[in-house]
């Protein structure tokens, strides 16, 4: 049986006037119905681009240069825009980062919800409004009837993100891709939104791809995790395994830098020295090598491949391929 979603060796390039640069370099992962996957990395690591490339909605100069995206066994990465449109917002919905910017300021909430349903279902306006109302209730919005006639700017950020979640639920999708859904919100609201997402996935058996820089959130929500660095997935596996026993030094560094969620309480928070390279000047060999405390000569020459390192975890690190190398800690 095929997976709900499978991304195989995805490569995304941006055609700039300087020449092409690679934003995603050979990313692969799988997702099953009801499963939750976390895509983690610093900003610029390519996690958002990965998310957008699933529904083939990369901003203009970007394009998928290699690899495949399979949804329910069908290769949707080769779909035309018109075919793709039937999947976007229908089987696969997206939640954007900034709820302030996501809703069109000049249309009412109701308008923007109804048009989404009508884009995918042959349904009357009244019927669509009924669905919209139902979904608004589902995301626990107070007095939902009123909201339909309100404009986005009349609502708070958290409220807007709830509405966007409601919009993404309108067509009962199989997958929701949430791109940093809580970054722009207050901490208290962040938790509410995450709880809501979890609750909805459970009740509707939806799959979730959670794109975030916050390992802490991912570790609480998702079953699987993919860590990205400079356009590559450098560690991929079950969440509890990766978080507890990180293989890649970068993952390790990330986990150590999370306050309140360190592996060994009482330990100092550790910062990863240096900065992630920009896509235009990725160092040769392992992209992480300038910042890596394990660096050897090989790291600056050959690029490590993602290999099975045991316990269903895959990692891309020359220093950690042999057997169980976690003794270094």
């Amino acid at each position: 049986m095929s997976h709900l979603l499978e991304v195989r060796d995805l490569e995304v390039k941006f055609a700039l006037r300087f020449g092409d640069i690679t934003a995603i370099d050979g990313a692969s992962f799988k997702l099953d119905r009801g499963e939750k996957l976390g895509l983690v990395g610093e900003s610029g690591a390519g996690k958002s681009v990965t998310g957008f490339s699933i529904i083939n909605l990369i901003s203009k100069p970007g394009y998928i240069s290699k690899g495949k995206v399979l949804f329910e066994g069908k290769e949707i990465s080769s779909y035309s825009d018109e075919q793709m449109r039937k999947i976007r917002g229908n089987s696969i919905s997206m939640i954007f980062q900034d709820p302030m910017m996501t809703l069109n300021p000049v249309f009412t909430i109701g308008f923007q919800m109804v048009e989404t349903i009508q884009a995918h279902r042959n349904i009357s306006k009244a019927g669509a409004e009924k669905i919209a109302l139902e979904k608004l209730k589902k995301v626990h919005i107070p007095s939902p009837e009123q909201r339909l006639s309100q404009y986005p700017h009349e609502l708070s950020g958290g409220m807007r993100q709830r509405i966007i979640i409601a919009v993404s639920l309108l067509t009962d999708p199989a997958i929701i891709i949430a791109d940093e859904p809580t970054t722009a919100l207050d901490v208290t609201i962040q938790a509410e939104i995450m709880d809501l997402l979890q609750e909805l996935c459970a009740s509707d058996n939806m799959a979730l791809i959670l794109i975030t820089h916050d390992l802490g959130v991912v570790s609480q929500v998702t079953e699987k995790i993919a860590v990205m660095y400079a356009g590559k997935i450098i560690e991929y596996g079950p969440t509890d395994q990766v978080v507890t026993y990180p293989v890649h030094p970068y993952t390790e560094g990330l986990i150590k830098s999370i306050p309140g969620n360190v592996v060994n309480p009482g330990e100092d928070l550790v910062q990863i020295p240096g900065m992630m390279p920009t896509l235009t000047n990725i160092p040769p060999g392992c992209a992480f090598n300038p910042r890596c405390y394990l660096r050897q000569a090989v790291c600056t020459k050959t690029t490590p491949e993602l290999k099975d390192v045991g316990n269903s975890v895959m990692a891309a690190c020359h220093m950690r391929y042999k057997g169980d190398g976690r003794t270094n800690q």
Partner: protein
Amino acid sequence: MFAFIIRRILQAILVMLVISLVGFSIKNSIGDPVRDLVGERVTPKERAAMAEKLGLNDPFSTQYVRFLKNALHGDLGTSFIYRKPALEVILKHAPATIELVLGSALIIVIFSLPLGMYTALKPRSLFSRFVMGFSTLGVSVPVFLTAIGFIYLFAVTWHVLPSYGRGETVDLFGNGYWQTGFLTIDGLKHLILPCISLASIMMPLFIRLIRSEMMEVLETEYIKYARAKGLSPMRIWFVHAFKNTLLPVVTVFGIQIGIMFAFTILTETVFQWQGMGFMFLDAVQRADISLLIAYLVVVGSVFVIVNTVVDVMYGFINPTVRVAGTK
């Protein structure tokens, strides 16, 4: 909303006061109106006597207070050259300009919206480049050259369109105020060249404005989100992007309509179009200062009205700006 309108009316009155004051203080630089009313052989003594009789020699304050007093009764003075209440003269000239502006506004809207949007959506297509190049050319040619060029081709060389004036007009309300050229074939024919000439300078501005605004809107998150929702491109362009593009365009359009209404001097002069701009130039050249001051006051009120309407409209299209509740 109501408070807003009231405030604007009060402001308008202030504006009018300032305009009339400035108008009064500069009117002596325009020239001596008596000169245009008499033959050249009339002696300076007779001219001085006439100026005295017209009250032109009174002290500034006396003249201004007299003007304000009459203005309170709706009398903005009497035009020397038309020998009629200045307001009546202006109102009789206004329809010509309104029809001219309406005609060219129509042309502008019909062409600049689709062209502007097209060039924004397909900036690299050959047609877009052609449109942009052509519109750049349009801005670069002075309107009086465009106008006389049109006359040269369509009237003088090909004899297909009339060269000047408004042609056959019909009295719209039967009171002599609104002579319309829209209801006769001849009147419409006379409208074509002036409208196109006038539009030729304004249209490029709008094509560019719509293009650049549209391009900016297309880059926004909400447009990307609309695509992520699976909306059709048509809907994204013509519903989502369109309305957001319109906001700044409406502002500029409103202002431009106001400007066109008051100052289509060159187009009207070349086509001998008896509108406001034409009348204004005539008044300047013949030093009809009382008509000029009335004109300034009327134009001032037009601008206040246009701006108010634009602000109100802006509030209607853009829900984030509610005029009444400005912080």
